C-alpha cells in the first residue's frame, strides 16, 4: 500500500527490532489481563454448562438443542439475514461516506442525522419499526390516507414481507455503525490520491476500486468483523417485529436461558454463535490481510 510502504525500511533503521516485542507486550498486556480477570472464570463456567450435568460430561444438551423445532429455522434465518444484510449495509455505508466526502451542502447536518440510529437501543428501534409495520401502524395509515388497502406485513404466513420488514429495520438501525467506522477511516486518506487519479483520467469506479477501497481496507475489515459479530448478537428488532415467527439463534439462547430456565441448552446455543462468529472473523482476517499486513509488517 502506498502509505505505509515507503516507511517500512526507515523504521527498521530507527528502532532495533528486539525492542519491539516488549513494547507491544506492555501496550497489549493490560487489555489481556483485564479481560481474563473479569471474564475468564465466568466464560469457562458458562461454556462448560453446555456439556455438563450432575453426572459429568454429556452431549444430551446438544442433542436437545438440535432436536428443538425452532433450532434449524433459527440457524437458517440468522444466516439468511446476515448474508443478505451485510453486503447491502456495506454498499450503503460506503456510498453514504462517499456522498459526504463529495461535500454536499449541509454535510455536517446530514452526517449527524445518519449517525442518530446509533443512539437507539435495539429495543427502542424494534418499538419504532413495530409502530410502523403493524397492522394499524404508520405504514398502513399512510396507505389508508392515500385510499389504498393496507396489508398485514408482519403476519406469520407472510414470510417474505416479514423478512423484508426485519431487513429494513436492521438496515436502518445498524448501517450507521458501519458508516461511522468508514468515515473515520476515510479521514486518514488524503484527497490528493483521488484527485491525482482523476487527473490521469480514471473514472469514478476505477478510482473507487483501485484507490479508495484499498486504502479503506483496514477500516472495512474492522467494520466487517464488528458488524457481523454484533449481527449475531442482536435479536430485539426481529423479536419485536415478528415474535417467535422469525426465530434467530441468539433469541433462542435468551429463550432457553430466561424463559425455559435451561442454562445448559442456552450455553450450547451460545457456543454455536461463538463458533460461527469466530470462523467468520478468521475468514475476514485472512481474506483481507495480505496487503495491509505488508504495510505494518
Amino acid at each position, binding site marked *: 500500500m502506498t502509505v505505509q510502504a515507503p516507511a517500512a525500511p526507515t523504521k527498521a533503521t530507527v528502532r532495533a527490532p528486539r525492542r519491539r516485542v516488549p513494547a507491544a507486550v506492555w501496550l497489549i498486556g493490560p487489555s489481556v489481563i483485564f479481560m481474563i480477570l473479569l471474564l475468564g472464570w465466568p466464560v469457562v463456567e458458562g461454556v462448560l454448562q453446555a456439556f455438563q450435568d450432575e453426572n459429568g460430561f454429556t452431549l444430551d444438551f446438544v442433542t436437545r438443542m438440535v432436536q428443538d*423445532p425452532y433450532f434449524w429455522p433459527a440457524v437458517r434465518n440468522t444466516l439468511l439475514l446476515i448474508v443478505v444484510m451485510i453486503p447491502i449495509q456495506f454498499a450503503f455505508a460506503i456510498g453514504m461516506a462517499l456522498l459526504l466526502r463529495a461535500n454536499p451542502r449541509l454535510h455536517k447536518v446530514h452526517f449527524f442525522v445518519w449517525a442518530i440510529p446509533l443512539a437507539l437501543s435495539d429495543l427502542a428501534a424494534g418499538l419504532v419499526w413495530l409502530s410502523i409495520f403493524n*397492522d394499524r401502524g404508520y405504514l398502513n395509515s399512510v396507505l389508508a390516507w392515500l385510499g389504498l388497502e393496507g396489508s398485514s406485513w408482519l403476519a406469520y404466513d407472510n414470510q417474505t414481507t416479514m423478512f423484508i420488514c426485519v431487513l429494513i429495520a436492521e438496515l436502518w438501525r445498524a448501517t450507521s455503525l458501519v458508516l461511522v467506522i468508514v468515515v473515520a477511516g476515510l479521514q486518514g486518506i488524503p484527497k490528493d490520491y483521488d484527485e491525482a487519479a482523476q487527473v490521469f483520467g480514471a473514472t469514478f469506479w476505477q478510482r473507487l476500486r483501485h484507490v479508495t477501497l484499498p486504502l479503506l481496507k483496514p477500516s472495512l475489515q474492522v467494520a466487517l468483523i464488528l458488524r457481523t459479530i454484533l449481527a449475531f448478537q442482536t435479536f430485539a428488532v426481529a423479536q419485536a417485529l415478528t*415474535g417467535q415467527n422469525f426465530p434467530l439463534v441468539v433469541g433462542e439462547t435468551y429463550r432457553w436461558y430466561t424463559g425455559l430456565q435451561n442454562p445448559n441448552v442456552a450455553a450450547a446455543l451460545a457456543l454455536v454463535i461463538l463458533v460461527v462468529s469466530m470462523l467468520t472473523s478468521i475468514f475476514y482476517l485472512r481474506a483481507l490481510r495480505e496487503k495491509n499486513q505488508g504495510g505494518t509488517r
Partner: protein
Amino acid sequence: MNDRFASTALPSRRSMLLAGLGTALSVPFLSACAGFDTSGAAAGQGTVGFLSTQFTPVEEKQRYEQVLKKFVRVPVAYNSVDPGVFASTVKSQAAAGNIRTSLLGGLHGELAPLAGSLEAVDSILTDLSGRGFTKEMLELTKAGGSASKYVPWMQATYVVAVNKKALEWLPSGVDVNDLSYEDYLAWAKAAKQGAGRPVFGMPAGPKGLHHRFYQGFLLPSFTGGQITTFRSPDAVAAWTYMQELWDNMAPASTNYDAMQEPLSRGEVLVAWDHVARLVNAPADNPDDWLMVPAPRGPKGRGYMLIIAGLALPTGGRDRDLAEQVIRGLSEPLTQVETLRQNAFFPVVQTELPTDLAGAVALEAAAVRRQQRSAGALLALPPVGLGTKEGEVSQVFKNCFQEICLNNEGIQPVLDRQATELNTILKTLNVPCWAPDPVSAKCEVA
C-alpha cells in the same frame, strides 16, 4: 485520557469543549462512589429489599409503592425486574452466599424453580391460617417438596374481554355470559365475515400466555384433564377445534403479548387473556366493554388460577422485617387495595367491595361468574415441576405452532409432544394436579 490528549495535542476551541465536558462529567463520577440509589433503599438499615417480577410497568409500580407505604409499617424498597433477571439474581446470590434481598415476590411458575434457594415458610402459614388460603393454593406452595416455599400473595385468572361492537355478530339466542366453545367459534366466524377481517385475538406472542389457554381452558374443557389426556381422542377434538378457531383469529396474534393493547387500539374486539393484561383495555371507557367468563366445553368450564407468592431467600437480610411485610400484605385490607389499584385478586377470604372502579368491577364480576358457574372445572398451573416448568409450557406452545401455524397432522404432533412431555415428567416423578386425578405419578396415558 480524553482531556489529556486533547489539551496537549490540539489546543483548539473544540478540544477545550471536550476537556470541559470530560471534567464536568467526572464530577458526579468522583462524588458518588458506588452510584445513586434507585429503589428507595437508601433509607438505610431496616429497609426491606423486595425483589419482584410483578408490577413492572411504571404506573403499576408507582401505585403499588403507595399501597406498600400505606398498609405496611416497614419501609420497603420495591424493585421490579423481568423474570429472567429475577431468576439470575436469586441464583447468583445464593451461589455466592451473599444474599442482598430480604423478600421475593413472583408467580408460582417463577418461584417454583428457585425452591432450593428459598426458606420454608410453614410457620408463617400456620400463623396466618385464619386468613383462609384454599387447600389447593397451599398444595401449590410446596413446589413439589414437602415444605411450603412461599406465602400466597395474590391471585388472578383469565377471562374474555368483549368490545360491545362485536355483540352485533353474536349468534342469536346465545348468552354472552355463558358461551360454549361452539358458540365462541360461530361468533368468531360471523364476526370475521361481518367485519371483513378477523377481530378475535389471542396472546400468542413470545411473551404471551396462550399456553395457559391450552393447559387450563381448552384441554380441561374438552378432555377433563391436562396431562393424562394429552393425546386422547378428546384432545384431538380440542386441537381440531383450535385449528378452526385459529383460522378465524387475527393472524397478528402471534405478535401479541398482552391483549389490552390490540383491544384498545381496536385491532381486536374479542380476546381471552390474563385479567391483569386486559384491565387497561376498558380503562378509559368501561361502558363500551364487557368481561365474560371463558367458554365451556363438553367436560365443563375449565379455568386456571394463577397464584403469585411471597418468599424468603435462604439467609436473606432482615428476616423479621420481611416477615412483617408478608403479614402486612396478607391483611384483607391490603389485598383489596391491591385489587383496586392493580387488578390482582385477594388470596385471603374477604368480601369484595362493591365500589370497584370500572374495569376492575367488570373483571371481578366475570371472575365470580366463571368460578361459580355450573360445571366450573379448576385447573392448576403445573405443580412441582420446578425448573422444568418452562419446558412443559413450551410443549403446549409447540403444539400450537405445529398444529395451527404449520398445519401438521394433529395426532402425530400430539404423539411426538407427548413423548417429549413424558421424558420431562419421568425425571421429576411428581403426582398429577387438578383437573387430572391426583395419582402417584403424572404422565401422558
